């Protein structure tokens, strides 16, 4: 046997699982097909600009003295110190709908006062919702799915408030169209409203460097440009991995972070038919705009704006290339950094349709990228002051880009709506973690890797 555990994918969940395994002396190797780590939360450079993929902000921020929430749990599990993450807190974020806005910071009391002020008739109902949320065990690995739309609407009687609460939670971590699983709603509610947003001064690169260094210090092996072509199975057991290079690696157990259906697709044909799993549909375009001054000098004071400009908030795969009627406007400069960031950036996120993007020819794809960027900007400047004259650089990535670099089907950044909380597959020594296990976001992804490593890969000798 070459390894105790082989991990497919060096994203947040694979690296976190790898640290746990390597720390406890397992012989472990992470295989990454890209030349760069990070997966859905990676980074790139263009025209001299250093850009993050994915990360707007890290959710789950709590101060150093809080012990029992996901972030400190994660740090303890990875034997990292709070200071290692170099987190700087957000200024203020806002949920902006046509008639109302609710602002929030990392101070939960402020969010409560905003809800009370904007929805005075819902004050008691909102308290009831908070009670329901605090009593729910969202980290249970065997919970039955429950509709969050139904659960929340049965408590909050104003549909506008319901929509406004769902908007950020869906944009930052929901794989399902229209509705959300209640456990997921609770996870996201706590991570965004009760806890909060922060960002390392140096963005996602900082977090990834930290994880890779820790993993290597613990003795873990990381192979870049090592795509897995197939998982070889015999007697219902994964025996080895065939790499694109032709190398074959054997291991006792395999942990895949590439998605459930994506993992099943690596199995021999006879096995692949076993699974009739839903494929995620939700993907996004991300428009990245460099501007010639600080966003705050352009009147963009907030950190993140979740907006909806239509009658009802609709979270679904659009029929057209993109849906600009709602979205996220993020200003990565608007965190309390020790020193200002070198570049001034505004990022726009909109729901998008993978099939439509994928069917375009090369020339048309380029043209549509430009047209959609323009449309996304037009929608954004109805929400924030018009900053278009200050733009000095633009880039956009689409669902097709996400699929190309991460292999996630449909470019579905939050994976399949059907989550596998316990990480098991029908192959007894093959497990999954990451987006399709179900803890989402950067902190969630790392916890996903840790949880599955603890549950299935660490206990036995």
């Amino acid at each position: 046997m070459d390894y105790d555990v082989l991990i497919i994918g060096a994203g947040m969940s694979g690296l976190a699982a790898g640290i746990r395994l390597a720390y406890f002396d397992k012989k472990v190797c992470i295989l990454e097909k890209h030349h760069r780590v990070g997966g859905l939360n990676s980074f790139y450079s263009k025209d001299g600009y250093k850009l993050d993929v994915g990360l707007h902000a890290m959710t789950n921020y709590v101060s150093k003295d809080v012990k029992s929430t996901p972030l400190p749990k994660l740090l303890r599990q990875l034997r990292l110190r709070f200071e290692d993450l170099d987190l700087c807190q957000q200024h203020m974020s806002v949920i902006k709908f046509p008639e109302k806005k609710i602002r929030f910071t990392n101070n939960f009391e402020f969010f409560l006062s905003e809800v009370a002020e904007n929805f005075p008739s819902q004050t008691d109902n909102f308290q009831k919702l908070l009670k329901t949320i605090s009593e729910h065990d969202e980290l249970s690995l065997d919970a039955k799915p429950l509709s969050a739309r139904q659960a929340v609407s049965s408590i909050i009687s104003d549909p506008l408030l319901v929509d406004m609460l769902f908007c950020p939670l869906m944009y930052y971590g929901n794989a399902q169209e229209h509705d959300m699983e209640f456990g997921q709603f609770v996870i996201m509610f706590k991570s965004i409203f009760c806890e909060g947003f922060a960002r390392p001064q140096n963005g996602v690169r900082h977090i990834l460097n930290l994880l890779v260094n820790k993993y290597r210090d613990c003795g873990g092996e990381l192979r870049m440009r090592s795509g897995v072509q197939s998982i070889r199975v015999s007697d219902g057991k994964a025996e080895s991995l065939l790499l694109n290079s032709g190398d074959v690696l054997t291991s006792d157990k395999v942990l895949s972070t590439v998605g459930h259906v994506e993992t099943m697709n690596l199995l021999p044909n006879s096995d692949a038919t076993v699974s009739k799993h839903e494929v995620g549909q939700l993907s996004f375009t991300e428009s990245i705009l460099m501007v010639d001054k600080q966003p705050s000098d352009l009147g963009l004071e907030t950190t993140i704006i979740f907006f909806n400009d239509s009658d009802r908030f609709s979270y679904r795969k659009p029929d057209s290339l993109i849906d600009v009627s709602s979205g996220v406007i993020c200003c990565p400069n608007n965190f309390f950094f020790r020193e200002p960031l070198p570049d001034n950036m505004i990022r726009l996120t909109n729901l998008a349709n993978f099939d439509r993007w994928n069917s375009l020819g090369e020339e048309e794809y380029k043209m549509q990228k430009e047209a959609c960027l323009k449309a996304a900007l037009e929608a954004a400047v109805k929400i924030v002051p018009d900053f278009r004259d200050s733009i000095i650089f633009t880039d956009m990535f689409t669902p097709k880009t996400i699929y190309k670099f991460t292999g996630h089907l449909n470019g579905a950044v939050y994976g399949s709506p059907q989550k596998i909380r316990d990480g098991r597959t029908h192959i007894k020594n093959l497990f999954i973690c990451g987006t399709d296990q179900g803890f989402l976001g950067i902190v969630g992804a790392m916890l996903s890797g840790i949880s599955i490593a603890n549950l299935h890969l660490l206990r036995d000798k």
Partner: protein
Amino acid sequence: MLGEQIRSVIVEVIAQIVPDEDLSNLRGDIRIRDQIELDSMDFLDIIMELRKRYGIEVPEDDYIQMATLDGAVAYLEPRMAHL
């Protein structure tokens, strides 16, 4: 290793897992989890650290005996006597 040494080893392991907790007044007869902030993941890590450091295997059925400091020392003493 004798009882008192084992006790300090366990406290040292706990300190490594939850470095910010004050362990100076940890009592032996009360559940560790009732005295300091320690969730089930952390508890599993105590077991894992003992295996990493001393090669001691604690089966899941025996975790309950490790709940208090006194219980853990009594449980580990015969298993760590040769160390």
